[in-house]
């Protein structure tokens, strides 16, 4: 009997993509990035976000000005001044609940991902991107660039790199330039008012002072060349954009 095409046993293989964090211990699963989608994490994160949002609303009378400027649905970078641990949850609170699993605040790996409890908090509640600011900053910035190629991902970054110690604004680091030079990804500058008063560096418990987030116009640096000079230029340009949003008093 001659074999015809219909009798062949060859079957086209399906495309399986097993979870990359299979067979990993819990702490590595939490520290790894990009994270696999875990349904239980989504549930916990959404619950935590609801609690945080109501707490901000009631305790800090949190207010967002010009929220409509956020290009929700597209990929973008959200940047702001960094005064306190309240900054990140404030910025995440601007994003609709169903998008928060794709909003990644860059979090210092040496601080927010150092052991199991902090990693659990930073990955489940914050959805943080472990940023290696000391050893491999450039590598982490490349990871961020890759992340933004997926439509709808949001990156939250504080270009000052650390919280201000005394309330005076810090200098924006040129790394932010590396992220956005030559791309059309919009960067949204924001200014958060009141966070230093509410929870300064070193304070244990937040005071009930009012928080206001001023959202600026999105901008991008498509024509910027990938040089150190232009990175510095972008950083100072964004620094100006952020602090210009500060209300004049």
């Amino acid at each position, binding site marked *: 009997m001659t074999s015809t095409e219909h009798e062949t046993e060859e079957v086209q293989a*399906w495309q399986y993509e*097993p979870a990359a964090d299979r*067979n990993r211990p819990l702490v590595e699963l939490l520290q790894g990035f990009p994270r696999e*989608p875990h349904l239980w994490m989504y549930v916990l994160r959404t619950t935590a976000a609801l609690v945080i949002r109501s707490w901000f609303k009631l305790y800090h009378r949190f207010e967002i000005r010009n929220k409509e400027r956020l290009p929700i649905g597209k990929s973008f970078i959200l940047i702001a001044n960094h005064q306190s641990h309240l900054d990140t949850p404030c910025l995440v609170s601007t994003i609709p609940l169903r998008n928060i699993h794709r909003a990644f605040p860059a979090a210092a790996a040496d601080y927010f991902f150092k052991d199991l409890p902090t990693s659990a908090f930073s990955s489940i509640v914050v959805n943080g991107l472990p940023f290696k600011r000391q050893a491999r900053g450039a590598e982490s910035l490349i990871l961020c660039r890759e992340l933004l190629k997926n439509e709808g991902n949001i990156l939250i970054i504080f270009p000052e790199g650390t919280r201000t110690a005394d309330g005076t604004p810090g200098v924006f680091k040129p790394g932010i330039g590396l992220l956005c030079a030559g791309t059309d990804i919009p960067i949204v500058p924001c200014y958060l008012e009141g966070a230093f008063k509410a929870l300064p560096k070193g304070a244990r418990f937040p005071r009930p002072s009012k928080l206001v987030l001023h959202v600026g116009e999105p901008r991008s640096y498509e024509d910027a060349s990938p040089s150190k000079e232009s990175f510095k230029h972008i950083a100072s340009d964004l620094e100006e954009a952020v602090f210009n949003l500060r209300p004049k008093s």
Partner: protein
Amino acid sequence: MIPESWSLQEMVDPVLGLYALLAVGLLVVSGLVLLGTHVAGKNVSSIWQTYRGWLIMAPLFLVTLWLGRVPTIVGLGLLSMLGFREFARATGLHRHWWYTVAVYVSIVSLCVLELMTDPRTGLAGWYGMFMAAPVYVIALLLTIPVLRNRAEGQLQLVSLSIVGFIYMGWMFGHLAFLANSTSAFGYLLYLFFAVELNDVAAFTFGKLFGRRKLRSNVSPNKTLEGCLGALAVSMVLPWLLHFSFPHFGWVELLLSGIIVGVGGQLGDLTISAIKRDLGVKDMGTLIPGHGGILDRLDSLIFTAPFFFHMVRWFHDLY
């Protein structure tokens, strides 16, 4: 209030008590054998890990059964969901939450059907709806691409979800449904005991006499000798454990042996085929020395439904 006097029999069902004694006896004997082999200078570290797994799993299962019908059904339901989670993560289905949530909800619904009372007969467990459940679940899963207005690649996701639900949810769910039976202890304990012993027998006979490969493209380590040895053990076991189901005649005892002897091996081989296709060694790492939940439950999934329907054919559940 503490009763003035109580006997052990009032606290523990005699069948459950006998199995508990049996489990303790077997664990002690095999522990001593392992210790002896270790003292003799052989490396037993991998078997030791498997043994330690049993030391935890056996009491956990016995205590859950002892706690009653509801904890047993809920516990098996949780196991079912964890098993599906493993399956989803191994196939990549876990990235598509529409499908995974639909399957999780379906598994929870099965648990509810097992727990509730049949509205027509007033008996524990809504048998008719439980058996009809796949119709509704498959219809639901097939509707998801329509609801989302997406077509490309959806057939693979629908198919994986259906396999995941039927296999981990529905077929395994038969085991939980058995908890509604008046002879629940006997049936459940016999199944667990016989299936696991069948596994151990296949492993032991294979190690001792194994020559001919059983299915070289599916599971290279399984041998014909191991399989036949396990079948022989499984055929004898129902007679030795007759106290679990005193109402069984010789036909039922024979069928119980065949179901466990054949189904146990087939269950192992089917999950091996799936793992081979996926290119993974174990389905998970939840139980050290045993692999994932699916690696442990594969044989039970393949025996529980057949045993269930055999019992129902001859004696009904109640």
